[in-house]
């Protein structure tokens, strides 16, 4: 019993953080519910409360069914047994995993950089440039057999991401330029590069003036389950494998040990004979490569077309994922699955209750806040102020 308890202990804070974020989100939902507020102004507080809270419950229910599927559909599929019925039943879960795939990559990218003591805020830029590189390479190699094109495109994504991670890493190692500032600036430069590239005839489709690229359906990442309408592709499996590799790299190899040492105490690592500059650059390059690969899979597997809005803040969400997952690859994957479910369910919520998807961005920000301030969560829920698994010592402030 106590063993189980010790295992569950590190999950308490993240779990409560997510719950609290949703509670705060529901407060904002209630107070932006204008039709319900009008009832309050008309002097019907009870009516207001019932309507507003009812809407919140409806919204969060739509979110859950959108993320995990409708149990009724599963019953139907079991009765009918046709592939179409199964596809309908499984589509929400498939979409959740599709949404989680880029998050796993960017989350891992940020987790590696955080572990190494480097603040990579540039996941966004590395992600879009990875996607751009993959698109460009796929268009270049379009006459070759599809598997070669695909592999070439994915590698190009990795290389572009690496390059965009190398710049801030190199600048930090050589000149001490703060990586937060440089990566933020590089995010914006990456966006401008994408816009510039999407103006060229090489990328643009023959007709139309929108800033989108040609459709790359000739070298798509193959589907995982051959049922109609299930977009889930092998990128998800690759993401899981990469997570395992990152875990091996960080915790079982010498280089990984050096990175983690640099992250814990750069001065001590330097005295131990490790190269501080080298580990900063390595961390940023690995981080950029992971984010770039995520971008490549997003364009080659999910959307098949490069555009300005290929990235919906994955680099920022990744920070939430890395913190929520305790910067451990396994934790990041779990957090990415959760956020993938939220993002996907949010679409369903937006369709059913016309509550904008952007609510989830706000909720994700709140999750970061609560996870980053564990003492705040402990105070709210009256937990004992104890050090959690990530090694954060108990703060005096919480006890006082």
């Amino acid at each position: 019993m106590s063993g189980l308890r010790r295992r569950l202990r590190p999950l308490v804070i993240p779990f409560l953080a997510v719950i609290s974020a949703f509670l705060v989100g529901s407060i904002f939902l209630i107070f932006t519910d204008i039709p319900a507020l009008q009832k309050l102004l008309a002097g019907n507080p009870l009516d207001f409360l019932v309507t507003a809270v009812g809407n919140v419950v409806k919204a969060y229910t739509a979110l859950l069914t959108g993320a995990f599927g409708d149990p009724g559909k599963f019953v139907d599929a079991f009765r009918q047994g046709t592939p179409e019925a199964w596809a309908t039943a499984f589509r929400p879960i498939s979409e959740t995993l599709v949404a989680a795939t880029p998050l796993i990559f960017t989350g891992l990218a940020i987790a590696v950089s955080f572990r190494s003591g480097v603040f990579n805020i540039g996941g966004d830029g590395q992600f879009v440039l990875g996607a751009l590189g993959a698109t460009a390479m796929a268009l270049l190699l379009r006459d070759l057999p599809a598997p070669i094109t695909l592999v070439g495109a994915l590698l190009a994504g990795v290389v572009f991401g690496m390059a965009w991670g190398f710049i801030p890493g190199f600048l930090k190692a050589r000149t001490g330029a703060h990586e937060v500032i440089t990566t933020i600036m590089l995010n914006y430069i990456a966006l401008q590069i994408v816009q510039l590239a999407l103006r060229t005839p090489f990328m643009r489709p023959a007709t139309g003036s929108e800033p989108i690229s040609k459709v790359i359906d000739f070298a798509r990442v193959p589907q995982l389950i051959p049922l109609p309408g299930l977009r889930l592709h092998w990128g998800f499996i690759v993401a899981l494998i990469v997570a395992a590799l990152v875990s091996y790299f960080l915790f079982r190899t010498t280089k990984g040990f050096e990175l983690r040492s640099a992250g814990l105490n750069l001065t001590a690592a330097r005295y131990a004979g490790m190269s501080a500059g080298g580990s900063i650059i390595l961390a940023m390059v690995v981080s950029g490569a992971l984010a770039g690969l995520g971008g490549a899979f997003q364009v080659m597997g999910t959307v098949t077309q490069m555009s300005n809005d290929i990235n919906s803040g994955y680099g920022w969400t990744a920070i939430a994922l890395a913190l929520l997952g305790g910067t451990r690859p396994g934790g990041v994957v779990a957090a990415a699955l959760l956020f993938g479910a939220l993002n996907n369910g949010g679409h369903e919520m937006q369709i059913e209750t016309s509550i904008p998807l952007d609510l989830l961005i706000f909720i994700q920000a709140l999750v970061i806040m609560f996870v980053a301030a564990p003492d705040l969560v402990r105070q709210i829920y009256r937990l004992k102020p104890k050090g959690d698994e990530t090694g954060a010592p108990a703060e005096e402030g919480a006890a006082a």
Partner: protein
Amino acid sequence: MTAAATSPRAIVPAASEAHRRAARSARIRGVVICVLALIAFGFATNTMGDKVTFKFWLTEQGKAFIEIPTSPGVLWILAGLTTGLTGLWQLWKGASAAWRRWLILWLPFWVAAIVGTMLAGKTATLTNLFAGTFEYAFPISMGAFAAIICERSGMFDIAVEGKLLVGACVGSIAGSMCLQVLGPETGAVVGPIVGPAFAALAGMGIGLLMAWLAIRYKVDQIITGTVVNFGALGLTNFVYLRVLQTYTDYNTPPTIERIQIPVLSQIPVLGPILFQATPYVYVGWVVMLILTYFIFKTRWGLRLRASGEYPQAAGTVGINVIAIRYRAMLLAGAIAGFAGSYLSLHSAGSFQMNMSAGKGFIGIAAMIFGAWNPIAAFGAALVFGFADATQQLLSTLGVDIPPQFLASVPYVLTIVVVAGLVGRVRGPAMAGQPYEQG
């Protein structure tokens, strides 16, 4: 390195190696600058035949004007001459030449020459370009001021962007509510005051939240900034889509009109550029002057800087570092929130999604570019605002230059500055470090 920079002529044997290195890099720099001058002359011979006309309004838009017909070639010759002089000066004086100061002399000519070449055969109204520069620079400079106050007190502030967004949203809603509640006549008078005031209050609220998280719970200040930026984007988008899009009455704020400053606005050429602007621009000037005075000339400023540079020492002599940091975050929030209201309230505006569009981050860039000094940061903001205004000018005149190049200028310049490629700047030593009150 530092010895060579501060006392280049001092004969200290230990520093001679550094001297030789400084002298060599000075020679290389001189040659490079001279080559640049030759390039400028090369451009001059190619563009001598082109015509470009610059136009200034004398005292009022659309009335009397003066026109200066010229050629891009002339501008290139000026650029070449000033650059060449700088290069020769550098070669003659060696390591002791203060070449960075000379940048101010020749860079404007290069910019004018490049813009002039792109405008070949056209008439460009420079009054609008310069007046636009000040307007575009306003939110950037205020963002920079907010970040300067925070970082001088020892707090990182990458959340300027989020504060601008929330300020824009709250300012628009508060202004619109005034119109709704007080009626169109009173509302149009009160709204332009209430809107920015509430925007500033919202910014203060965010500042308080950030300070509370960072000081009380010791959350990393990069994380709190990320939370605010990301959360502000989500929240304002959410409010816009859920409320403002349907109930447009809440997003039709009163307009803040331009103000003509008596007498000064009638100065020929300069008047329409400097003194017929939106009130926000004047506020920007005033904040810059007050802030500079307060940071560098008052006890408050000394304590602020002390808690950013060496909080332990400040704490030892009895300065309440925590209180200073809280107050700095509140003040910075008010400034950034107020600046946000500019986005939605000036010239018949309304709140739009993600309307800050990276201006907050450019503000941080301006802070670094200006070496954490309000006046220099204001100058940097003007440079960035000029890039925006030029982009605007080129697109209205139909010059087919991809806007992405000019849009990238602030970001590239910031990386160059942070990386110390053109001289190193140094921020407050202890910015971002939590402080434990003993």
